[in-house]
């Protein structure tokens, strides 16, 4: 089974975000593989363990995103591809176009990706890739079985779950709960250093800048207001409750 996993490198969820010149500062930020993509990589490895075959990890990002690909290789993926778009001015359509182009040169039976990334949270990229490649897509999958020519996936839907069957090849996006991603073993880490990792530019996937120009422009970034300190209302229960109610109405304007 030929399996492709799409990954993105994101900020660590504990990273302290600061704006530098109107943009999100990258200084001193710990970078990680998007946790939803980690589920996708883990599921890809499980499919490989069950059905045989190989796992190719594809990412779009700057050169430092190699680290995310290496992590997937250390977990057990067989090869990696990084396409550096050469610009930071990208949006979901840029990334999906490049990914689809890179994947189209590969053989694949199934394409897995996180259903969203924890940074921008757009949840668009995997779906767009499916659209470009003209493949069926099942989103927010928490259980997956795939062999032969079809996949049966359990997907989160509002208020419950749906079990769906799609012919392969298909795009499947991972939701939390799909699996517990493995921690790379030393052997995995050592081998990852020797596994093939292709770094490419736009030209290498037969695209030029105009084909991938961002269609969405970010006008402005702003940080959420700092959380105000908590407040303790002293006094006897009756008085304190009255004071609380007053504060909720007049200060917080909730009731």
């Amino acid at each position, binding site marked *: 089974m030929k399996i492709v996993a799409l990954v993105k490198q994101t900020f*660590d969820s*504990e*990273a*302290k975000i600061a704006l530098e010149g109107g943009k999100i500062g990258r200084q001193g930020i*710990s970078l*990680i593989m998007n946790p939803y993509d980690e589920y996708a990589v883990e599921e890809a490895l499980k499919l490989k363990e069950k059905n045989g075959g190989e796992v190719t990890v594809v990412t779009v990002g700057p050169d430092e995103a190699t680290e995310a690909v290496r992590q997937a290789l250390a977990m057990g993926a067989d090869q990696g591809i990084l396409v550096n778009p050469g610009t930071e001015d990208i949006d979901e359509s840029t990334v999906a176009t490049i990914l689809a182009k890179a994947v189209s040169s590969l053989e694949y039976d199934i394409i897995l990706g996180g259903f969203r990334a924890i940074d921008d949270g757009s949840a668009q990229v995997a779906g767009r890739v499916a659209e470009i490649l003209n493949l069926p897509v099942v989103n927010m999958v928490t259980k997956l079985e795939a062999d032969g020519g079809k996949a049966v996936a359990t997907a989160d839907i509002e208020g419950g779950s749906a079990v769906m069957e799609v012919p392969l090849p298909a795009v499947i996006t991972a939701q939390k709960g799909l699996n*517990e991603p493995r921690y790379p*073993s*030393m052997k995995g*880490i050592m081998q990852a250093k020797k596994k093939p990792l292709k770094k490419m530019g736009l030209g290498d996937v037969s695209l030029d800048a105009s084909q991938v120009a961002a269609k969405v422009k970010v006008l402005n970034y702003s940080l959420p207001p700092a959380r105000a300190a908590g407040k303790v209302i002293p006094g006897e229960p009756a008085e304190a409750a009255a004071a609380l109610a007053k504060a909720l109405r007049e200060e917080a304007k909730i009731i």
Partner: protein
Amino acid sequence: MINPSMLSTLGIVIFAIVGAIALYFFAMGAVELFTKVTLGQSTSRNDQLGKRLWGTINHAVGQPRILRQAEGGVMHFLHFWGIAIFALAIIHLLFERLFGAVLFRSPVWYLIADIAGLFALVGILYSGFRRYVQKVPRLDTGGWKEERLIVLLISMITLMVVFYFLSYGYKIVATASIPGEPERYTLAFVSSWVASWFAGLDPATARFWEFTFWWLQMIMAFGLLVSFRYSPVIHPAVAPLNIFMRNLGPKGANIESINFEDEERETFGINKIADFTWKDLMDPYACAECGRCQDNCPAYLTEKPLSPKKILVKIKEQIEETVAPRVAMSTEGGHISFGVTKRAEASEEGVEEEEVKKLVGERISTDEIWACTTCRACQEECPVFNEHIVKVVGLRRALVLDESDFPGEAQLAFTNMERNSNPWGIGWQTRGDWAADLGVKELSEDSNVEYLYYVGCAGSFDERVKKVSASLVKIFQAAGISFGILGAEEKCCGDSARRLGNEYLFQSLVQENIENMQNYKVKKIITACPHCFNTLKNEYPQFGGNFEVIHHTQLIARLIQEGKIKPGSGGENLKVTYHDSCYLGRYNDEYAAPRRILRAISGLQIIEMERNLNKGFCCGAGGGRMWLEEHGKRINTARTEQALAINPEAIAVNCPFCLTMFEDGLKDKEVSETIKTYDVAELLARTM
């Protein structure tokens, strides 16, 4: 005249043949043991020979560790010394039997021999009594298969001594009329008493029985030599060697590092017998399975599946079942050679364990491996200086580095340490925030300070422990100490990562910390956590980080002594019990400094728990257990109950993990409103 106690020529020939057979088995046993043990990896234990020899003599002669337990101690002391001297008595008699030579004629010698025989008899029978009548739990071996050899040994030793006395009894009767002979035995009270049973027997009949019982006694003695190859009697032979080869390095630096630069290396943990060091493989043979380790093991005492003794027993079982070489003597072209069976040779190539249980996960369960808190109570107690903890860490390395099969909580802790340099996973940039309003320098602002105050993860991120950090700052400032912190540049010391088996993560944290500290030319470090203390002090030198490291209680005790800190007089009256942390106490032998601080604080009354000092009971958080779920009876609850048994008003600790564990334990017991836990430094700071 030929000494009538001498054997006939035929007797000597028979004796020589029987003796040669016994020695052959004994020698084969020794060769096999050597073969088994040397399957292990190399480790150096031949430095400081004088210290090794002196320690061996001290522990073999005086047996201080064994005597810590009165009943078992007396039992061992009696039969150890009894059999040792009794063996000389047998050899002494051999000279007479074979050469007609009587080496000692002094009645005192025969008195000593009789006393030794009596000691051996009483000691060995008492050991049987403890095992089968009292049924002392720690002596349990698990089943008749193991027990039958012990029964056989006790019987053989008992019979050997009984036969000896019978033989001597008859000898005294047989030689009663020979001039000079009776004078030898005037002080031999046991033999003479036995002789009194047969008084008046004619000398020839007495001679017959004297020789008969002597032969029987020799058969028992030879039997014991033979049994060396098949039974736990190997303990007396290996134990002194094991004490001699004990680890003389700092107790906190016993874990060996892994060279990850070695590209050839394929596995990093202990996956099979041949991955242990030879010393690890020798330990189980030195072990007498006395169970003193498990009697002090917090995991065992809270009904976890782990017993340190069983770990060693299982390693021995694995060796015996997988590599057990049977050595046979063969002659080829007139040359005698010792051939080791193919299986043992194969084992050196690491293919031996396919047919039997896997060492990790099957022979030794993962639950056993994860239950250890690395508290060192087992090793502190072990009379033969066995090293249990490095084995556990090695097995954990197999699970983490090789198999990637470990509890999910550990994975979370690892990922958090990787990404945010602390096991909680709180953003690393906020590490120095606790000190924001305390007027503490960061080295990035000014590195011209005497001490680096290495705060540690708990002191930086845990809400409760941050208060300890603040108390320390107050004390240091009052004493005029020149110090700074690393702030966001500080990383976890790596203690938990290493003890959970993640050596790779440990080394990456260590390298970053050492690099930072060397950049700022740090010479002296104060730590507020005994885990940081032990790791920085004892383990960082393995990676080129040589600093003078001091635990905060040591520094404060010194400052009080030098008069640089004056404990205030405003201390309320409080009955406090002090809990020894494992890594300050057992690992670094610091029991006094924290108690000195407590005694200097007015109003404090210090009361001691039953398990204190080097027998202190772990809080349950060591060895990375802080980050793992605990199932069944909790160790911190057990320790809290031990504290509550002496009715303290407060509990004093020196470690952030202990602090957390006690606070949780007191909550479990629903007394957290009335009994509080404090770091020693907090108790001092609040009087200032």
